């Protein structure tokens, strides 16, 4: 017999029960985590969503090189995921948004979304460089916001972003293929893009 004490008491048993290993598949309602579940309530208020769109559009602006981040679905991705897989960080993210707007009001006297692009850039530069006040950690918030904007712009559209595959088109990603031949691994080639979600349901746009 093992040396471990077999106390058999209720609390020990309760701990064992609570720590049972559950297969991941059994705790996922859908096939993938963070699925685009439009039935789910969004994580952000309309004002917060507008702020996310404006913020993201300064990181990836609409210009001669294509659509901006929000047109690519990045803000939608952030909203959907904060209601789902990223729900544990929703509160801290919203705190960052609140601090962003408060800093815009303090430094420029207007809500962030009402500032000119130049003023918005000044606000974001202050957040990025850590000089903006009112944040728990403004650089960490900026880094996280930027990362989520990249995810929303360049991920499989299943998660709510990369609308019309605009993100993949921007960087020339030829899309998920189940098999790839030698010609598709040559340098300097233009490969016909595959525009589909690997989770199905999305093809050539929403």
């Amino acid at each position, binding site marked *: 017999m093992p040396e471990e004490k077999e106390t058999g008491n209720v609390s020990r048993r309760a701990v064992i029960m609570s*720590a049972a290993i559950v297969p991941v598949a059994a705790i996922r309602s859908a096939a993938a985590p963070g699925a685009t579940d439009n039935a789910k309530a969004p994580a952000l208020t309309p004002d917060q969503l507008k702020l996310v769109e404006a913020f993201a559009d300064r990181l990836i602006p609409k210009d001669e090189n294509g659509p901006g981040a929000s047109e690519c679905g990045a803000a939608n991705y952030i909203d959907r995921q904060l209601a789902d897989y990223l729900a544990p960080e929703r509160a801290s993210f919203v705190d960052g948004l609140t601090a962003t707007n408060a800093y815009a009001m303090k430094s420029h006297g207007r809500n962030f979304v009402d500032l000119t692009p130049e003023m918005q850039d000044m606000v*974001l530069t202050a957040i990025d460089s850590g000089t903006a006040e009112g944040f728990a950690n403004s650089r960490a918030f900026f880094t996280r916001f930027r990362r989520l904007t990249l*995810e929303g712009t360049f991920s*499989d559209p299943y998660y709510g972003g990369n609308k019309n595959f605009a993100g993949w088109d921007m960087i020339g990603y030829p899309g*998920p293929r189940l098999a790839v031949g030698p010609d*598709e691994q040559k*340098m300097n*080639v233009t490969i016909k893009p595959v525009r589909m979600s690997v989770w199905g349901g999305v093809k050539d746009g929403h």
Partner: protein
Amino acid sequence: MAINLKPVDVAVVGLGAAGGVAVLPLAKAGLRVAGIEAGTWMDPHRQYHADEIFNNVRGGVTSVQKANREIPTVRENDKSPTRPRGTIHPMMNAIGGTSIHYWASAWRLKPWDFRTKSETIKRYGAGALPKGSTLEDWPISYDDLEPYYDIIEHEVGVSGKAGNIKGVLDPAGNVYEGPRQRDYPMPPLRGTEYTEHMMAAAKKMGLKPFHGPSAINSQNYNGRPGCVYHGYCGRGGCHISAKNSTAVSTIPAAQKFKNFTITDLAHVTRIGVDANGRASGVTYIKDGKEYFQPAKVVLIASYTYENSRLFLLSKSKAFPNGISNNHGQVGRHFFSHWQGSPVMALFPFNINVWYGTPAQTTVVDDFADDNFDHTGLGFIGGTSISLGTEMHPIEAAAMQTFGMAPQWGSKWKAFVKQNAARWTSSYLQTSTFPYEQNYLDLDPEVKDPLGDPVCRVTNAAMPNEARAAAFGQAKTEDWFRAAGAIEVLRGPAGPGGVSTHAYGGLRMGDNPETSVVDKWGMSHEVPNLGVLGASTMVTSGARNPTLTVQALAWRTAENIVKNWKTISVKG
């Protein structure tokens, strides 16, 4: 009370890369083998996807979240605070373990790796040994392990090109490798225009490049197809089972024997000890119930952190500081591979590395091991440089801007649009050694949901490795520039935190004062308790550990079979 199960001959804790190999020779020999695994079977069709968010961002390829609830804490030294704890363990739980989502690079160590201490003293003098190191020679040589490397290459399936068959060198392969009895069972993975471009540049520099070996089929093998290079191999499962995880190779082969059983979704909590100080079996929890599986021989084959942790948790009258720890060696001689330490390169043209796999490589070994004269360099060992394929879209867009553009805004966007398909990184692995100050123990505060302390890693970057890594980075820069890169940039080098390449803690050796297991992987103090995995490795080499882990696992299992009466006898 734990429910007592019917005794078996051998209990194997963990059916990953190591345990998943050992069960085959054990089962084949007719022993009653109980494979006890925390995870369960993965479904290639439902759980393996070409999706960067699922695989790489969220670590979705795992069957249960056990590892993520037991992530070790990490600190630099005895006085430094523990770093913020990560949320995703780099290893996964499943039948097949991390061999499901690893890169599948399948290297043999070099003869030098097994005799680093004595070879260093012979060539450079004792003063060249890294200060503070507890380095020893392995108790076995490359020649002792060669037959087992050969078995694994054929049983699991490895693609590659031999560079040294019985002393006859072939420059199409790695001429620095130790002599092998025969070639790989499959040719290397397909080259790409990029890997061939880098191959040509290396040759022009006078280097000896080759395609790295991988446990991925390059053609049909053992009833499974060749790789289709779809570009979601790293941290992803293979949708066509061309990656030779133990879940599709040795475990199914072992299942042909009725004397092998698998218990999945079982969390092993303790190794039992009998009145004679021998291992009596293991306690595990499954479906909220506690079981005890008696066994004549116990093999512990979870990951490096968890192996040492389980030893330390298994306290008894005979072993008050944890099983097999009466010499205070459990958790010692731990080291964490310096891997990654990348050099990023920007080319003025589209290199198109979107697809492929990280194991579809051109590799240079000229600056690894003792393949060059170290006189005056201030370090021993070296760095292998591996250039592979597989780039994902978020990763590509999150690229370094090489000082040529800001991190956001229209200028950033224009830069990324132009360059996302023109940059790549490198994979550098540096010989890493054990030091007195680096070790594993139990965290005094952080516990898993069962209330058991998690593993604590105390690990500082040491100067020998830092110099060897910097040397390798400089050589990588030279290589990229020679191939036409217009910008190169060094990434951070170091041993990392919680790593896929963690070694030691239950080191192999002849001396119980400086090691935990003998040259067969069996405990010095508990002769019917064995260890599988990189826990027992004495040095890292400058290459991925898995093939060595698997060769050692097969060897340990074969030794148990050959000496069954001695090893299994009731004391």
